[in-house]
């Protein structure tokens, strides 16, 4: 029962996290910042706006991105197969990329290209994460992972690699070249407007839920450790976001594939042979 309630409320919780993050980023820059419920005000305004439909596939693919992402979050909450969750998440990203390529805007195409490159960078780490949990627990099931003791110590290098993945997925500096506001005007989301942009906006909130739920898997059955991890990583990601500048896509690939892949491989080899 509580799972169903969590699944239904997932976008709302994500919106609250997003509002908290905007507030926190503002406080870090010594500003007052928007109110906590600002994301919901944005949603309320977008309902009233006129919406342009570029072509039907574009809008439908945007909605599919949101729905499949919601399914991913639901599967994590219900404790399904981790590998299945990772590949379903890949599918939801593919929907967004197809939506970006279905319009004529050159910025949309650049955004889709960069999104593909970002997937190339972070997907191996996600899969290695699944493999690491499998070696440790003997199962890909998230419900089994949640029942075992914390995996943070034995998967510490993979945890570090996962920390590099968070800014890419949440579109934060220094790894936000795939969205890049003002430079390529938001990339794939440029042609969405009005009600249809809301689905993308809510998908952004669900991305927060997805990433932080994956993060909490490191804590296993220790809920206190999970909450602590969430708080520390949330603070750290925003600190790095405020303190660094955007880097190029090629540098992103080099850094994330070079350091992240090495860290993950070391951890996996260590787990199998030591």
């Amino acid at each position, binding site marked *: 029962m509580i799972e169903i309630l969590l699944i239904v409320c997932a976008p709302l919780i994500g919106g609250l996290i997003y509002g908290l993050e*905007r507030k926190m980023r*503002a406080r870090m*820059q*010594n*500003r*007052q*910042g*928007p*109110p906590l419920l*600002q994301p919901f*005000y*944005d949603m*309320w*305004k977008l309902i*009233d*706006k*006129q*919406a*342009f439909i570029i072509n039907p596939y574009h809008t439908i693919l945007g909605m599919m991105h949101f729905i499949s992402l919601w399914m991913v979050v639901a599967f994590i909450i219900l404790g399904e197969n981790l590998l299945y969750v990772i590949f379903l998440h890949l599918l939801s990203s593919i929907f967004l990329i197809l939506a970006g390529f279905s319009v004529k805007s050159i910025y949309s195409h650049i955004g889709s290209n960069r999104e593909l490159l970002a997937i190339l960078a972070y997907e191996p780490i996600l899969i290695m994460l699944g493999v690491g949990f499998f070696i440790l627990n003997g199962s890909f099931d998230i419900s089994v992972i949640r029942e075992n003791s914390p995996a943070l110590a034995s998967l510490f290098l993979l945890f570090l690699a996962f920390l590099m993945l968070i800014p890419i997925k949440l579109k934060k500096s220094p790894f936000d070249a795939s969205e890049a*506001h*003002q430079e390529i*005007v*938001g990339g794939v*989301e*440029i*042609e*969405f*407007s*009005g009600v249809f*942009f809301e689905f993308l906006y809510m998908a952004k909130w669900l991305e927060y839920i997805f990433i932080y739920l994956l993060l909490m898997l490191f804590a296993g059955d220790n809920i206190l450790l999970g909450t602590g991890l969430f708080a520390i990583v949330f603070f750290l990601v925003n600190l790095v976001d405020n303190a660094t500048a955007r880097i190029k896509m090629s540098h992103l690939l080099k850094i994330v594939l070079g350091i992240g892949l090495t860290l993950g491989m070391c951890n996996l080899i260590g787990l199998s042979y030591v």
Partner: protein
Amino acid sequence: MFNLKKYRKKSPWILHYNAGSCNGCDIEILASLAPKYDLERFGVVNTGNPKQSDIFLVTGPVTLRSRERLVELYMQMPEPKVVVAVGSCSCTGGVFRDMYNVEDGVDRYIPVDVYIPGCAVSPELIIDGLVQGLEILEQKTKEMEKPLKLFKESTCEEGIVNRRDTALKVGKIDEKN
């Protein structure tokens, strides 16, 4: 039941366009978005994307080169939208008025709702103008909901049918009569 409609004006996303400005006003706009004046506390986000923005901030006298893009950006913004002319140049043409390469202000091409004077404008004035723009945005949102209604017959003069002013928004009919 609390009124949800008052929350509509709490999230204005702005689009900033430089129509041949000297960058004085642009710097002031950026200053008002920066920590000291902090426009984000009203929910303002500088989107840079016309399809998702509500308030159009234009700086500079409209030069011949920039006028096409100005009109195109205005057309790409979805309703309801508010245009704010920032600085003396975009209000009247300023010191560039009547020059051969300048079109004397934004309102020669697109309807302007709020004029912010000053060369360069101070951030306080920009904040004041934007907050006034929010009131207009709320009014326009309400106007969009009102239906149009035919209230008089079209006239026919010398074989040319004139349908001007036959249809008006419902609230306006009472004002006219």
